[in-house]
């Protein structure tokens, strides 16, 4: 049985794929005015200010934490810089109880949903208050209360998971959907194909949100795919698709609102490809000067999504230079204070090595932990983080912090 409908031809005729030109949806010019023909934006003053604040907070957090990594205070960091409008614009178009399954460059979503700087810092420093108990590398955030699935490093694995999560939401009948973010590099993984096909066949209310930022580490998109980006692939799965200017907050927000409506009201998956640019290095372990030009970076700095939104906000009289200055100073201070608090916090207890592997610690794991503790008792100086839980005297943290641990 096939659902294919086709006309017959009697001489060979090949299609090459370049027929499918996918347009780019845009609303806001770089000067902060609406394009002619664009509908008035649906964002009101308060909603726009909340988004703008989250974008600035994300930028400030990223700048400060990259600096902290450079100072050796943090082992690793990844910035969202240049992609704040794509990530936060999409998040703001969702219901706060919709599930977000991200890749790793979407901290803006968490900022928008109210993840506090202290919560960020606890994860980045892997201290005892980290929800992930210090097990994962920095930026692998998760929040159950904010419906933000814990990040994992393997690329694209969350994409079919998002399809499954959304299918469960459909069965539960609560009118929720799932959005999954991923880069254009991750879209080359087999899991991307598996996810889109399964979501289309089983009608899962999921939004596949691709951040096409031009690079997967050093690999430019011309070496990632031969097609016109990621968007045309949706047609092969018979899926709704839109390409949007990812540096245009209004267009991203509007497109995601509509995608959510299609997903939740019709139980159809949607693919959004947001065209943007990774302004920062891939990570704190990467130096992009080896593979792309300063001129190219400068051209994109002029298209900064924050600058574009700021101009629009100022033109509406919804934002002023004074407010900008006050907000920036306040956020910098808050980030710095949160970082100092998190740095001083002790690591998670030694027992967290073996908890949560299974719902209950197995007898074999308990035995391995007991053996380890006996060993650390013999060589406490060699294992200072673990030893502090064997003997409080060996703690490297001052007594004031003990009470809260």
């Amino acid at each position, binding site marked *: 049985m096939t659902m294919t409908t086709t006309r017959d031809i009697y001489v060979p005729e090949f299609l090459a794929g370049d027929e499918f030109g996918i347009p780019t949806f845009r609303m806001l010019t770089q000067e902060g005015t609406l394009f002619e023909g664009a509908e008035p934006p649906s964002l009101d003053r308060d909603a726009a200010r909340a988004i703008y604040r989250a974008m600035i907070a994300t930028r400030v957090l990223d700048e400060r934490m990259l600096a902290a990594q450079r100072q050796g205070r943090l082992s690793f960091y990844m910035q969202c810089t240049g992609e704040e409008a794509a990530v936060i614009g999409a998040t703001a178009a969702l219901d706060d109880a919709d599930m977000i399954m991200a890749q790793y460059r979407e901290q803006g979503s968490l900022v928008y949903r109210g993840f506090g700087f202290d919560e960020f810092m606890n994860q980045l420093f892997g201290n005892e208050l980290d*929800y992930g108990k210090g*097990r994962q590398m920095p930026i692998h955030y998760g929040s159950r209360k904010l419906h933000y699935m814990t990040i994992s490093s393997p690329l694209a694995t969350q994409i*079919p*998971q998002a*399809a*499954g999560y959304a299918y*469960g939401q459909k069965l539960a009948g609560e009118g929720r959907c799932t959005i999954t973010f991923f880069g254009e590099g991750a879209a080359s993984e087999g*899991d991307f194909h598996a996810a889109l*096909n399964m979501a289309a066949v089983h009608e899962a209310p999921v939004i596949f949100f691709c951040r096409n930022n031009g690079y997967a580490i050093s690999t430019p998109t011309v070496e990632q795919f031969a097609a016109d980006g990621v968007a045309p692939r949706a047609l092969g799965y018979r899926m709704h698709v839109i390409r949007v200017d990812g540096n245009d907050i209004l267009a991203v927000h509007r497109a995601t609102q509509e995608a959510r409506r299609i997903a939740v009201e019709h139980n159809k998956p949607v693919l959004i490809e947001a065209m943007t640019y990774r302004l920062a290095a891939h990570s704190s372990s990467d130096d992009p000067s080896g593979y792309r030009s300063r001129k190219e970076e400068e051209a994109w700095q002029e298209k900064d999504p924050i600058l574009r939104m700021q101009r629009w906000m100022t033109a509406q009289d919804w934002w002023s230079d004074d407010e900008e200055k006050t907000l920036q100073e306040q956020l910098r201070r808050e980030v710095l204070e949160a970082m100092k608090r998190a740095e001083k916090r002790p690591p998670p207890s030694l027992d967290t090595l073996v908890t949560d592997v299974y*719902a209950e610690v197995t007898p074999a794991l308990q035995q391995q932990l007991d053996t380890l503790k006996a060993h650390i008792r013999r060589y406490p100086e060699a294992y200072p983080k673990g030893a502090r839980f064997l003997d409080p005297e060996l703690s490297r943290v001052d007594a004031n912090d003990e009470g809260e641990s």
Partner: protein
Amino acid sequence: MPTMNLLQAINNALDIAMSEDEKVLCFGEDVGGFGGVFRATSHLQERYGRARCFNTPLVEQGIVGFANGLASQGSVPVAEIQFADYIFPAFDQIVNETAKFRHRSGDLFNVGGLTIRAPYGGGISGGLYHSQSPEAYFTHTPGLKVVVPRNPYEAKGLLLAAIRDPDPVIFFEPKRLYRAATGEVPEEDYQLPLGEAEVTKEGSDITLVGWGAQMEVIDKAVAMAEKEGISCEVIDLRTLLPWDAETVAESLFKTGRLVVTHEAPLTGGFAGEVAATLQERCFLYLEAPVLRVTGLDTPFPLTLEKEYLPDHLKVYEAIRDSVNY
């Protein structure tokens, strides 16, 4: 008590799980209206609807990825991989995602509801890709549970336990026994414990350890040995991860001799783990080296399957070698 074959027992367990909890879903390739290529999911779509029992596209990494998502959402997916030989495309989802979901999130999220069923093992002229026993790839992965039943009664009780277990379980079904093994199976709901081995026969001279379809082979070998007056104790591990070393050690304190047998290749096979653990725990009690009777370190053959398999004669010879050491 009704008599069921192994497939009927599995089908019965799935039926009970789905009728009792509407969050239980069964899916995989050909699992829906057709009821699976082995018919393990027969009639489930009729009874519980297409939303809860359905065919997936032919993509193993998608099946397990989708199942991981469903389980993290609070559903109870029972995903089928058509043959254990084809579980490898989903290896990344299972090892990097399923197994680490709870730990890496600090227990904010988990996929404890997930069960992955897959027919495994040789003896059906399945050649390279319809015969493999991949359990040892998964027993090396903290966070997973790996369960293998040996007969219909065990299959139903262990599968119901696996579906309700708070941790993700890979459930390998011995397909050679799907129709060959029959036995009395209670119609009502019951569970058998995970993580516990079972002494299926008591003895005093030697301990034999295996799981799944290999238990039948062990029983045949033991019958031969006992005719010669060798008293054999037989242990079915049932769960390979986390496995029950205590029960085997208890047995070894008594017998002092151990043969471990599985169909999978020798090198890196789970018998290695059993042998190393038991020599560590029972060193002073051992009267002979621990012997392993396994498949060869080759891909699984087609024409020479009978020669390749660790059959009852090879196990019988190992028993004699151990006793005569």
